[in-house]
């Protein structure tokens, strides 16, 4: 079956702009995760959804970052007033549950100029 997909694959924006990153998880996976990964670093946890609700958003760095998953499937990560420090690869993963194997998408490379 289809894996986790993320769009766009690359996004270049200017400082101060608003961006949305989309994640389509594997069908039937109730858990969805967003991570941020900078070059040479491990993934940095941002937020975890169980169904439609954000079970843990403790990793969101500040209030410019927000994520939704209104129907318990597709999720959108939203970043307001982007800053150059937001440049990174944003990874999405889904799993059957909180302790299960996570399946990752290819990521969206965000570049803020």
């Amino acid at each position, binding site marked *: 079956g289809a894996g*986790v997909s993320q769009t766009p694959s690359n996004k270049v924006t200017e400082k101060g702009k608003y961006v949305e990153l989309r994640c389509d998880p594997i069908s039937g996976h109730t858990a969805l*995760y967003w991570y941020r990964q900078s070059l040479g*670093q*491990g*993934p*940095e*946890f941002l937020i*975890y959804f*169980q169904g439609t609700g954000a*079970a*843990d958003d*403790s990793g969101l760095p500040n209030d410019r970052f927000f994520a939704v998953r209104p129907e318990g499937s597709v999720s959108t990560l939203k970043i307001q007033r982007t800053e150059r420090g937001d440049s990174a690869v944003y*990874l999405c*993963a889904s799993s059957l549950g*909180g*302790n299960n*194997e*996570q*399946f*990752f*998408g*290819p*990521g969206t490379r965000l570049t803020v100029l």
Partner: protein
Amino acid sequence: LAKTTQPISMDSYEGQEVNITCSHNNIATNDYITWYQQFPSQGPRFIIQGYKTKVTNEVASLFIPADRKSSTLSLPRVSLSDTAVYYCLVGVGIDSNYQLIWGAGTKLIIKP
């Protein structure tokens, strides 16, 4: 808060067994330990997961001592294609209290 530590890099040769250890001193009693592999420009890929003692699958083994403060990923007979970054991941809590702590990754280079 659980924290993980693993070597920054390791080298080995084709056909050898490679062991990568991750320390997680503050792991809670209900934490799982998971290892992922990542190639450049790709998302991480699941290798193996365990809770205690030893787990083995078709690609690796995971050894977890009784105190669970560390874990060792064992890759038997590595090949050039095993060159990648390997991450240990500790889960803390369940459901709404779940937190994920990733190591910084071990860059493994396999030489011919």
